[in-house]
C-alpha cells in the first residue's frame, strides 16, 4: 500500500505544501520569477499551463528567454496549432534560432494533441495552443513530457477560466505587462510577479525600441477624412 501512496503523491494533481523541489527547473530567464518557482524555473519535464487574460498579454514573450536558452543547448522547438502566424522577424530579432523551430498546423484538436505528444516523446520542447483540453489529454502529455524529459507549455485561449481539475505542474495567469499570477505550482502557494520592467528591458536590448513614451502626437487625420466609416474587411 505504501507504493500506491507514493504513486499518489507523485501525481501532478497533488502538491504538498512546502515540499522540496524535486528536479531543477528550466529557468524562465526572469530572475524575479525563477527565484520563486520550485526548482528555479518552469517544470523541466512537466506541463506549464498559461492563460493570458487577453491576447497579447505576453504569453510568448514570457517563454522566449527559456526557449532561446534551450535552443542554445541543442534543443528543438515544436509549436503546435498556434492561433496566429508566429512572426519570423520578431523571433529572429529576439535571438531565437529559427532553424530549430517547427510549427504544426492541424485540422482537428485530437491531431494537435497527438502531434504535441509525439514532439515531447521525441525530445522536443513543445508549445501547444489548445482550447479544448481535458484531464486525460493533460495526463497523456504529462507522461510524454516525462518520457522525453522535456517541458511542455499549454497555451490556453485568452480569458479562459482556469480549470483546477486539469493536471499541470504549474499554472500561470498572465495579465498584460506581463504580470504573472502563479495559480498553482508544486510545493508553493500561489504568488504574483510583475515582469513588465524586465520584458521591456529585454525588448530594448534586442533592438525593439518600443519604449513606453506617453501618447504620441498623431498626424492630423489623413486625406480620407476622420469619421469615414471603417470598411468591414481589409482587402
Amino acid at each position: 500500500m505504501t507504493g500506491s501512496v507514493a504513486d499518489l503523491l507523485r501525481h501532478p494533481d497533488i502538491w504538498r505544501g512546502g515540499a522540496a523541489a524535486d528536479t531543477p527547473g528550466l529557468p524562465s530567464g526572469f530572475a524575479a520569477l525563477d527565484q520563486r518557482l520550485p526548482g528555479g524555473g518552469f517544470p523541466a519535464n512537466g506541463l506549464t499551463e498559461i492563460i493570458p487574460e487577453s491576447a497579447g498579454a505576453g504569453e510568448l514573450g514570457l517563454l522566449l528567454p527559456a526557449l532561446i536558452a534551450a535552443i542554445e543547448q541543442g534543443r528543438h522547438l515544436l509549436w503546435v496549432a498556434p492561433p496566429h502566424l508566429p512572426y519570423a522577424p520578431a523571433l529572429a530579432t529576439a535571438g531565437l534560432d529559427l532553424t530549430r523551430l517547427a510549427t504544426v498546423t492541424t485540422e482537428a484538436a485530437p491531431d494537435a494533441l497527438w502531434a504535441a505528444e509525439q514532439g515531447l516523446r521525441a525530445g522536443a520542447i513543445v508549445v501547444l495552443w489548445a482550447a479544448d483540453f481535458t484531464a486525460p489529454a493533460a495526463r497523456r502529455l504529462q507522461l510524454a513530457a516525462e518520457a522525453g524529459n522535456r517541458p511542455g507549455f499549454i497555451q490556453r485561449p485568452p480569458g479562459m477560466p482556469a480549470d483546477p481539475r486539469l493536471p499541470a505542474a504549474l499554472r500561470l495567469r498572465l495579465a498584460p505587462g506581463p504580470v504573472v499570477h502563479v495559480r498553482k505550482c508544486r510545493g508553493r502557494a500561489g504568488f504574483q510577479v510583475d515582469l513588465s520592467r524586465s520584458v521591456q528591458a529585454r525588448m530594448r536590448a534586442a533592438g525593439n525600441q518600443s519604449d513606453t513614451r506617453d501618447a504620441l502626437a498623431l498626424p492630423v487625420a489623413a486625406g480620407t477624412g476622420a469619421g469615414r466609416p471603417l470598411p468591414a474587411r481589409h482587402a
Partner: protein
Amino acid sequence: MQAGQPAATARAVLPDLHLLTRDTAAEGRCLRQLAGWAQQFTDRVVLQPPQSLLLEVAGSLTLFGGAETLRHRAARELSDLGFAVTAAIAPTPAAATALARIGRGECLTRRADLAESLADLPLSALTIEAQALDDLQASGLHRLGDILALPAAALARRFGPDFITYRDRLLGRRPDPRQPYQPPRRYEGELELPAPADTAAALGFAARRLLRELCGQLRAMDAGVTRCELMLTHRDADPTRVTLGLRAPGRDPDHLGRLLDDRLDRTPLPAPVDGLRLRATGFVPLEQPQQSLLPTTDDSQWQRLHETLAARLGPGAIRGLAVVADHRPERASRAVDPGTPSQASDNRPRPLWLLHAPETLPAGLVPDRTSAGLTLLAGPERIESGWWDSRDMRRDYYVAATADGARWWIFRDRDGWFLHGLFA
C-alpha cells in the same frame, strides 16, 4: 505421406488435401530478394537455385562478432522474414551447402578437420546427380566417410572425373570459384498474404517483412532511400498505393514501419488486401559522416519527428519559419522547410504574432485625438510598395497599447485603421 508420391496416391490418403502448383519463377524472385537482404553480411552472395544462398563471410566475421554470432543472426532474421531456414558455416562453399541441405545448422571453421567433421554426412547431402547417388548407394556407400576412404582413381573410373572435382572442392583441395550476385540499385519485393487482410495492424506486420528486406539491401550498399511505394493489391479492385517519404535518406526498418502504420491507419481500402508489393528506386549513397559531424540524438530524433508528423498529418502540416528580406510585413516571414536558414532581418519593432489577415479596428478603438481606446507608443513607420509587386500599398504602422496594457501592431492606410499583429 512421402516426398515423391504421385498426387493421386496422396489424395487417396488425404481426401481434403489442398494441392498447390510449384511456382519456380516466384521461387527465383524470392531467392534474388533474399540475395539482396544477404548483402548486409557480405557483398559476395551467390545464388544456388532453387533454395539456397551462399555467403562468403570470411571477411565479415570480425564485424559481426564471430562465425557463430553471424550464423545466428542470419538465421534469426530469415525466420523473422517467415522462412524456414538452416544456416551452416563451413570453410568451403560445397561443405556449407551440404550441411544446410540436410538441416545441420553447424559452424565448422577449421579446414584441417573438415574431412573428419564431414565423415558422417549422408550422401544425400551432396550436390550430385540422382543417378550418381543411386550408384553410390548401390555400391554400399552411405556416408561421406565411405567415399573419402576410397582411392581417387577408382572413384574417377566409377563415377567420372567431375565427381573427383566435387569431392576436392568439398574438402577445399581445389578452388571453387563462384559468380557473385549483383543486386540492382533498386528494390522490388512482393508478398502474397496467406489470407486477405484488411486491418492496418495485419498489413503493417506483413509489410515489415518487405521493409526489412529493403533495408538489408540498403545497408549492404551503404545506401538509403527517401521514398518507397507500397502497393496493396486487391482481388477485385485496383491496387491501393501508399507512398512513404523521408526527409533524409534512411534505411531503418522500424522507423519506416512506424511511418507506414500511420499511413495505413488513414488509408481507406476498397477491399481486403491479398498481396503487397514494395518498390524503392533512387538509392542514395549514405556516406559515413565525419566523426565530429555525427548528428546528436536530438537531431536525429528531430528528423524522425518531422517524418512521423508528416506521415500522419500530411507533408504541409509541419513547417519551419524563416525571415525573408522583404519590406512588406506579410512577406518578411515565410513558412519554409524546417531548418531553412533565415535572411538578415533589421531590428525594427515587430510583433511576435502576425494576424493571418489585418483586421479592421473596431470604431471605439480607432486612435484619434478624442479616443482613449488605444494609446500609440511608437510610430509611424511608413511601409510602401507599388506597381512593381502588383500590390499597391502605403501603410503607417504604430505600436499601440490597449487599455488593459496589451501591445498591438496597428496601421492606417487609405481604408482606415487595422490591427495587424500582437506583441505577445
